[in-house]
């Protein structure tokens, strides 16, 4: 078994807000190996972004982060900030939902891609530029040699996202963190980007952590998946196991909530209510108030543990078998 590229253990993030501490992430464990894709799914506010930001040392200053984070075997939490930043720059590439958060509107796209190479690989300006052209070509920018001097506003949303991917790849990172990279894009453009990342991953062996709330995208890209809710993982495991035999009522309900054109037009399965307020989380299972199975008083007052149900497949529950039957 190859070593993990990134492994986080018991990661907890509490953010100080004007109205009190918000527990954004609580005791999260996951890891990703070379060439593998881990998908983090969950509804808005479930802690997907905050868990990867905190793991890579990018949490906001108001956040208190605890837990262990190993990047290529190095414990990041014990490193001084400067070393952590260097390791991150050298080994981790980021792609966010809005490409303009990563792009500088007044610099040419070529300069921006090249700069990352100069900074982290020590390339000369000339070498970095020619590497930038190669990468823009690799990510599918037509006539890259001519367009290397164009500005971001001259590109469409999908093309800008390709530029950001080129920037993220110039250091040949061991890990690519993609936070909703296609959410703002049309489906045909999304299909182009998904295909592009899968292809690069095959060729370069990059590990990918892909954050999304689209279960269809997860089915297409992931090896393993972690389903988050109110800062915790409710279910995780190989994508076939989690989608084929969802064992947490939340996962089952999410999978059933999407309209399925093959299934005809009856009412959709819904989950009553809305996710809880992170400033005011219930003491037991955070999903209890909305849970269609609703265990018993224990679920309401005590936090259920994450227990194995099959190889590598874990579910947060007191009653693994019973929940499993209900979900069928």
């Amino acid at each position, binding site marked *: 078994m190859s070593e993990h590229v990134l492994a986080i253990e018991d990661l907890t993030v509490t953010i100080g807000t004007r109205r009190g501490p918000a527990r954004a992430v609580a005791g999260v464990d996951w890891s990703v190996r070379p060439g593998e894709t881990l998908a983090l799914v969950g509804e808005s506010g479930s802690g997907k972004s905050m868990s990867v930001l905190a793991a890579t040392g990018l949490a906001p200053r108001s956040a208190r982060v605890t837990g262990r984070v190993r990047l290529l075997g190095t414990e990041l939490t014990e490193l001084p900030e400067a070393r952590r930043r260097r390791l991150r720059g050298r080994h981790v590439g980021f792609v966010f939902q809005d490409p303009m958060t990563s792009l500088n509107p007044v610099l040419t796209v070529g300069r921006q891609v090249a700069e990352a190479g100069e900074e982290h690989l020590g390339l000369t300006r000339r070498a970095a530029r020619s590497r930038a052209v190669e990468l823009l070509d690799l990510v599918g920018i037509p006539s890259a040699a001519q367009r290397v001097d164009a500005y971001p506003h001259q590109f469409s949303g999908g093309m800008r996202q390709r530029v950001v991917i080129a920037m993220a790849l110039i250091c040949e990172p061991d890990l690519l963190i993609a936070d909703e990279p296609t959410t703002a894009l049309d489906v*045909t453009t999304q299909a182009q980007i998904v295909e592009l990342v899968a292809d690069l991953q095959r060729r370069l062996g990059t590990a990918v952590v892909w954050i999304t709330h689209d279960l269809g995208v997860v*089915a297409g890209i*992931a090896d393993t998946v972690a389903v988050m809710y109110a800062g915790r993982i409710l279910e995780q495991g190989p994508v076939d196991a989690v989608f084929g035999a969802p064992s947490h009522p939340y996962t089952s309900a999410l999978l059933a*909530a999407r309209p399925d054109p093959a299934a005809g037009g009856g009412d959709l*399965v819904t989950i*009553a209510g809305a996710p809880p307020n992170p400033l005011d989380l219930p003491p037991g299972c955070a999903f209890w108030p909305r849970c269609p199975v609703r265990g018993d008083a224990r679920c309401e007052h005590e936090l259920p543990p994450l227990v194995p149900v099959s190889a590598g497949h874990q579910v947060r529950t007191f009653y693994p078998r019973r929940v499993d039957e209900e979900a069928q």
Partner: protein
Amino acid sequence: MSAPRTPAEVVAELNDLTVWFPSPAGMVRAVDGVSLQVRRGETLGLVGESGSGKSTTGLALLRLVDPTSGSVRVAGQDVTRWSRRRLRALRRRVAMVFQDPQASLDPRRTIGASIAEPLVVHRLSDGRAARRRRVEELLDMVGLRGDLADRHPHELSGGQRQRVGIARALAGEPDLIVLDEPIASLDLSVQAQIMNLLRRLQRDLGLTYLFIAHDLAAVEHMSDRMAVMYLGRIVESGTPAQIWREPAHPYTAALLSAVPVADPQVERERRRIILSGDIPSPVDPPAGCRFRTRCPQARPECAETDPVLAEVDPDHRAACLFAGAAVRAMRSP
């Protein structure tokens, strides 16, 4: 073209509508020759990628944008050239629900005041007490407690705000509700709640919807008939079943093949039709077929002839010179 087999009352229609916006780069042809009819009691779905002209089409039905040419008819009347004053009456006949419930509600007003606004403007309930009763009734219809009337929008979740937007649209008892991406900003579990609510209200109150979304599965689920837009035009229309099973336009086929399905096995085995390039600028759409710059089946003829939306099956139309055959060629290995 054959008449519908069960002639239904047309609530609203667009005939060869164009809406062009001036811009520094030239005229933006946001809508460029769209005809459609919405029949009483149905949901007509409008799907297409960003910038294809869906919202502009919806806004034209409320006359919230001015048509450049063509006509808009609502409840049998040609409203294309109606004055601002006369349009107030139209705004009661056609209501709209927007994507972002945050932006469409005034943050300083209570929920109750926002819902009551159409009641006041159209003089639908007399007196405060009657208005309050009607507001509570409307809140109840959309599954919210009556006491939410005294809250402000920031105290509500996204799903609750969207329910308020729907209650507000219902207030004037409109003939048609234009729903512009009503679920796009919501979480998955809340999207399903809103889709079920919209369908239940339609059944109970006999409502008519124009349902605009870029989410094909949602449009398929919600609609009785649907239309696919590309670059200011409708390129295919038909029932969801026709379009899902037998798309006749290459663009529709590509769009369908790009929609991810939450089944890892299906995803591994599927063959995607990956379109190259981006949607061209609506300032300068390609001559001939507008889709030809990205169409995997484009031939020289496609640059010369602008295909019309022609029937391929009863009630199923496509704007492609090689409708049907082109899609079969794309899908065969």
